[in-house]
């Protein structure tokens, strides 16, 4: 009888312990397991010392304080915004961050985004207290250092790509000094403008350039219209002259030919031809005209005439 009691008592405590153990495990399961997603890595410290880096999966661990676990995504692209802040529904411009001096003591307004990923997860967790804030602060410093060594026109126009790559190189070298464990993937100068206070004046320069081009173009259009037209008129003038020449020479030749033919004919019978021609002319000319036939004595004595009457009524 006593043996049975002993057995049941022992088994009771055993089951009790097992139940408590299972309950504790379920309640504190987080202290014994952790999940690493596919884009993540986990760093485990055992008794404070680095023990292992683990990848994707459900992982076993010892509860703190025996083991500590740090997990972060190593493929997620992290962003730092300088000069603006993305807010719900758009972005908010931050003048303090965006306005900066250029090498020729002008002021420019820049919005920049930096994209980076964790390269070394141990460094990322163990070397710097504020790795992400560090990227932001170093990014600002790099941006202003590079912009500060360039003239404003270079920043606004052709050297933008070169400046971007200079900033990236500078920033990467700074964070490498800090052993941040991070790689800068890309730097983009998204907005590069003259400050709002002067933007009108800058735009006007562009407009003035266009005005100049317009004026020159319309002058050239005038020239390109005028010169060919003048050449055309000139051509025409010469052609007219040549036409005149052709006509004149032809006329002359015609007249000369006619005279020569007439003259040849006349040569065969001179006086007869002359008389014939004379009479033919008279017969053509005299009919129909008022004529006064003078009779009277003597040669050519002209009687007094009433010239008004002779003039006739017209």
């Amino acid at each position, binding site marked *: 009888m006593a043996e049975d009691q002993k057995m049941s008592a022992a088994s009771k405590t055993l089951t009790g312990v097992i139940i408590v153990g299972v309950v504790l495990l379920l309640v504190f399961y987080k202290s014994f397991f952790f999940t690493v997603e596919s884009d993540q890595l986990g760093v485990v410290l055992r008794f404070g010392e680095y023990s292992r880096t683990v990848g994707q999966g459900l992982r076993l661990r010892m509860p703190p304080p025996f083991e500590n676990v740090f997990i972060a995504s190593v493929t997620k692209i992290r962003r730092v915004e300088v000069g603006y802040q993305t807010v719900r529904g758009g972005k908010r411009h931050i003048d303090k961050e965006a306005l900066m001096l250029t090498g020729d003591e002008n002021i420019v307004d820049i919005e920049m985004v930096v994209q980076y990923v964790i390269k070394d997860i141990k460094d990322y967790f163990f070397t710097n207290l504020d790795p992400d804030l560090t990227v932001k602060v170093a990014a600002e410093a790099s941006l202003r250092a590079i912009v500060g060594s360039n003239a404003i026109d270079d920043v606004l126009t052709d050297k933008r790509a070169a400046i971007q790559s200079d900033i990236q190189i500078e920033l990467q070298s700074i964070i490498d000094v800090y052993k941040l464990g991070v790689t800068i993937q890309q730097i983009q100068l998204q907005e590069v403008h003259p400050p709002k206070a002067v933007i009108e004046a800058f735009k006007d320069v562009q407009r003035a350039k266009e005005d100049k081009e317009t004026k020159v173009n319309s002058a050239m259009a005038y020239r390109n219209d005028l010169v060919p037209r003048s050449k055309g008129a000139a051509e025409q003038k010469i052609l007219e002259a040549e036409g005149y020449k052709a006509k004149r020479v032809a006329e002359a030749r015609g007249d000369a030919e006619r005279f020569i033919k007439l003259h040849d004919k006349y040569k065969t019978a001179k006086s007869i031809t002359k008389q014939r021609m004379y009479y033919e002319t008279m017969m053509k000319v005299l009919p129909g005209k008022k*004529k006064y036939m003078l009779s009277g004595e003597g040669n050519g004595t002209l009687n007094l005439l009433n010239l008004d009457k002779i003039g006739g009524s017209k």
Partner: protein
Amino acid sequence: MKKVYIVLIVSALVFLIVLLNTAFVVTEIEQVVITRFGKIKKVYTEPGLNFMLPFVETKHVYPKRIIMVDKAPNKIPTADKKYLVVDNYSKWKIVDPVKFKNTMITIPAAAQRLDDLIFSTIREDLGTRNLSDIIAKTRDSIMHIVTLESAQKAVEFGIEIVDVRIKRADLPKENEEAVFKRMRAERRKEANQYRSEGDEDSLKIIAHADKEKAIILAGAYEKARIIEGEADGEATQIYARAFTRDPDFYNFVKAMEAYETIIDTSTVLVIPNDSKLMRHFYK
């Protein structure tokens, strides 16, 4: 039976309590100084599990990682009597926790002390340089020098200054407007230049075009006149060649033609009685 259990549990608890007060872990991001009654006993800068005397000894934990401090900007005069508003940040870490404990004691206190130290170093350096150089040329060497000098001064605090860097260097607000004014004036000048160049160039092109037109037309007119002259000359030659065959006959023919033209319907003819034409009539 029960007594055994009670003793076991109690001793386990006691053991646990003692353990909790003596065992401690130094992680990768910590360094620990153990003091006994205020006296430094042990320093741990490497991670691991360690033990200390409970109640008698105190554990002081300091960060091992690089700390960043970014305080408010300061207005600093330059060599050429101009002012720059400089916002710098610094990166430092505790390398000797004992020295740090003795001098700075807390992180915030250290941050303030370091900021003052660094600020005076920067001010000293910038005071020897011109504003335009600071902005454009010597930023790197300034930061390098300031980092080295500040680092030297910080060694006694057990601190290693990793980097001092200028985050922003701007003109004071009052000067900003002056810069904007100057920028506007420069651009206005540029715009005016473009526009007047446009006028000048276009007028030149138009003038050249007009001149070219005049030359072309003048040339054409001259050529035309020459051709016309040639035409007249050639015609005259042709006439002459023909008519000089017999100038009298030409005279006669021409007279006949003239009569046909001259004697029109308004002509009144007075024919004398000795007219050659009418001699047969008057016989």
